[in-house]
């Protein structure tokens, strides 16, 4: 009886085994690279000493970041977008949260119709939403502008708020509210001190979603904005001539601000869970 020598797997064999075991991770890494290519490109070209056209790399500069309003009209467009975003977010979050509570906590007639009415705007392509609103405004001889943009944004944000908040309400443990009632809290106090704080993260998430949908919307806005400018509209219009590097600065800044908000939110909610 001789001791069998188990041959060490060859290097190529081992590396191919490592490869197949980690295939899905490699694939995911590639997918992330793909997702971030244009973000990285936008960020890199925000430092381009570009002059008028930001198409080819001409050298590194911080000027665009020091003076983000340097390109004509860009800050006016951003200010408009921010205003529209804030107003639409507040309105859509309030209206949507009310609907979400009604749907998940009350019984009423016409539940199916209500659900359909919430679902349809999400299942309708943006061109149709934009075109139909514009058709109505034209028929009523209303000139599109700031107000009509806000109206449109609230309309398409409501459904997303309802879905987000509803999911949060559904995930609540009903025993928490029952406990409050058992401790003789009335319905209003239970809502105010138990339900609402528990649903708050969902409402905050919904508001964040609504704001980013509003800030980023182009198609519906383009139909209902008249001569009013927004940031996406500014980018679309200047795309033909070349986009100023300041637009890249604003896009990158938005990216980092949103990322920080999300990360802070995650950290806060994790610490709350711990305590």
């Amino acid at each position, binding site marked *: 009886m001789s001791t069998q020598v188990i041959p060490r797997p060859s290097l190529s064999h081992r590396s191919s085994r490592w490869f197949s075991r980690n295939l*899905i991770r490699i*694939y*995911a890494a590639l997918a992330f690279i793909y997702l971030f*290519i*244009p*973000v990285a*490109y*936008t960020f890199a*070209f925000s430092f381009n000493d570009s002059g008028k056209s930001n*198409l080819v790399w001409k050298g590194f500069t911080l000027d665009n970041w020091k003076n983000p309003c340097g390109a004509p009209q860009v800050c006016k467009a951003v200010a408009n977008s921010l205003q529209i975003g804030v107003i639409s977010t507040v309105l859509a979050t309030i*209206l*949507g949260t*009310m*609907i979400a*509570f*009604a749907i*998940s906590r*009350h*019984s*009423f007639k016409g539940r199916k119709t209500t659900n359909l*009415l*919430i679902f*349809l*705007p999400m*299942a*309708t*392509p*943006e*061109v*149709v*939403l934009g*075109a*139909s609103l514009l*058709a*109505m405004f034209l*028929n009523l001889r209303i000139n599109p502008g700031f107000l009509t943009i806000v*109206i449109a944004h*609230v*309309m398409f944000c*409501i*459904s997303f708020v309802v879905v987000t908040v509803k999911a949060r309400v559904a995930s609540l443990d*009903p025993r928490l*509210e*029952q406990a409050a*009632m058992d401790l003789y809290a009335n319905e209003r106090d239970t809502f105010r001190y138990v339900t609402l704080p528990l649903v708050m993260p969902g409402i905050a998430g919904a508001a964040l979603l609504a704001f*980013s949908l509003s800030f*980023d919307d*182009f*198609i519906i806005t383009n139909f209902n904005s008249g001569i009013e400018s927004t*940031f*996406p509209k500014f980018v*679309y219009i200047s795309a033909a001539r070349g986009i100023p590097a300041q637009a*890249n600065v604003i*896009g990158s800044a*938005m*990216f980092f601000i*949103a*990322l920080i908000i*999300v990360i802070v939110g*995650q950290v806060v909610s994790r610490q709350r869970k711990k305590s």
Partner: protein
Amino acid sequence: MAFLHGATKSHSASSKGGSPKKRSLTPYLLLAPGLIWLITFFVIPIFSLASTSTMVRPQGAQIGTYVQELRFANYVDAFLANQEQYVRSFLYAGIATILALAISYPLAYMIAFKAGKYRNILLVLVVAPFFTSFLLRTVAWSQILGDEGPVLSTLRLLPFVDESLRLTATPFAVVSGLTYNFLPFMTLPLYASLERIDPRTLEASGDLYASGFTTFRKVTVPLSMPGVVAGTLLTFIPAAGDYVNAALLGNPSTKMIGNVIESRFFAVVDYPTAAALSFTLMATILILVTLYIRKSGTDELV
């Protein structure tokens, strides 16, 4: 018992069935403002669009002036004149949806099952590109793939690549733009349904001598179907109506129906044709969506 009953009664709205449900005015007051908004600015405009679609411009009238004549032939005219863009919209959207599914499924699978403590970070990373404006990212692609961009100048160094090769202004660019822009819409619902799968069901399948691939095909995929349906819809619907990708990454022969609707509205000021096209687009999508949801048997989407 009576105590418990009292608690559930005052709380009846959250408990489905069982004790009789309270009927009060509260839900209607909660619903009213939002639903009125949706009816005024979503439902009524759809009827307005329908009414515009059958209008006719009177002889010699000013541009942009239309009167109602119930001319349903507008639909036929609009469709016949733009068949090509119609078919192309659904074709591009379909290919982009399949590509997005192929890219997103392994990604969502990896985040749900292999990411461990990095799960939340990776989820944020999926959404993060969204924070840079959708238009800026599309413009970035058009420059990356453009004639002076890094991809083409690298490709041209290869001996077998033709000098005249272009990547932008091609169907390839439009479809990859659509695929890219709607990826998170595909990944997030996929992740949500994969994450809900109890790992024990996968173990059980293995215990019953199913191979890894069989487990994936017979257990994982069926259990993730709600995510697949939601993701494909969230990708296909906006992709079919999109015109930004075709405008920024395409050429006149890659125009989609959204581009036609936009130019009919603004460049040509032909509201009835634009309205008829929008209406046909919406009807087609609603029919496709209904059939698809019926076939895949997931009604709980909202």
